[in-house]
């Protein structure tokens, strides 16, 4: 079931103004349709310009293979979220609340909110587009994950594996780089309770 969580604003780089946006818990047919008909063709077109997945980082398109529709329905422990503006899905996120635990020594073993997938629409990404449209979809979704986790008493503890193209995005937000995870073949990042509180205070 899709539920409105709140109204936010995304900065429209084209107009220099903030546009109203809405954050939803749960994805519906419109979100899946946006992904299949608007996101996926753009991702496929851009990724075809690169000869390898590593090189695709330059186009901010290493997530082109993510199957949002299949993935969102694959795990009972997933919660899905979308940010919409201008009648279109501008960002998507899947979090897992049951199958991951904290790794940082200060919170090792405790439950946490694990961000399985998070992405902004292709036309909002620097590197993908010379003239990206909205700024802030990723931050809005991250704030949503932290708030959702806090509501479930996970206290803002949040973890994720980052695509190489996104690694520089997470540390300035308060995530700690916990090193390379051989099992996932990606860097693992984690946020502490204190860092989550700081991030959310800055977002208000």
């Amino acid at each position, binding site marked *: 079931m899709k539920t409105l969580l709140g109204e936010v604003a995304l900065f429209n780089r084209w107009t220099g103004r903030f546009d109203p946006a809405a954050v939803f818990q749960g994805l519906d047919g419109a979100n899946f349709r946006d992904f299949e008909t608007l996101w996926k063709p753009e991702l496929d077109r851009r990724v075809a310009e690169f000869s390898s997945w590593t090189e695709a980082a330059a186009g901010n398109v290493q997530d082109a293979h993510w199957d949002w529709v299949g993935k969102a329905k694959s795990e009972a422990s997933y919660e899905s979220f979308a940010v919409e503006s201008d009648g279109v899905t501008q960002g998507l996120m899947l979090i897992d*609340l049951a199958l991951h635990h904290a790794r940082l020594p200060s919170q090792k073993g405790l*439950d946490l909110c694990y961000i399985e997938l998070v992405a902004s629409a292709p036309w909002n990404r620097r590197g993908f587009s010379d003239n990206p449209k909205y700024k802030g979809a990723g931050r809005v979704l991250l704030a949503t994950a932290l708030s959702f986790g806090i509501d479930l008493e996970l206290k803002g503890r949040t973890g994720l594996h980052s695509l190489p193209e996104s690694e520089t995005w997470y540390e300035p937000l308060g995530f700690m780089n916990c090193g390379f995870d051989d099992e996932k073949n990606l860097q693992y990042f984690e946020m502490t309770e204190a860092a989550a509180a700081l991030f959310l205070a800055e977002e208000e």
Partner: protein
Amino acid sequence: MDRRQMTLILSDKEMELLDDLSERRGMSKTALVRQALRLYQSVTERIEKGEKVFVEHPATKDKAELMVL
């Protein structure tokens, strides 16, 4: 988040376990039961799909299959 209330009847031993886990996980009893439900749901769905659920020792890589009744 929508919330509904229910009464849970537990034995002394089960209540002690709930208290202990709640303390160790740093959560209220309600949050702990919610997390336990999510985990149980996920494990149940995997087993129903024919998958096996293991715990693995990080150093020795020894695996033990979780038996879910």
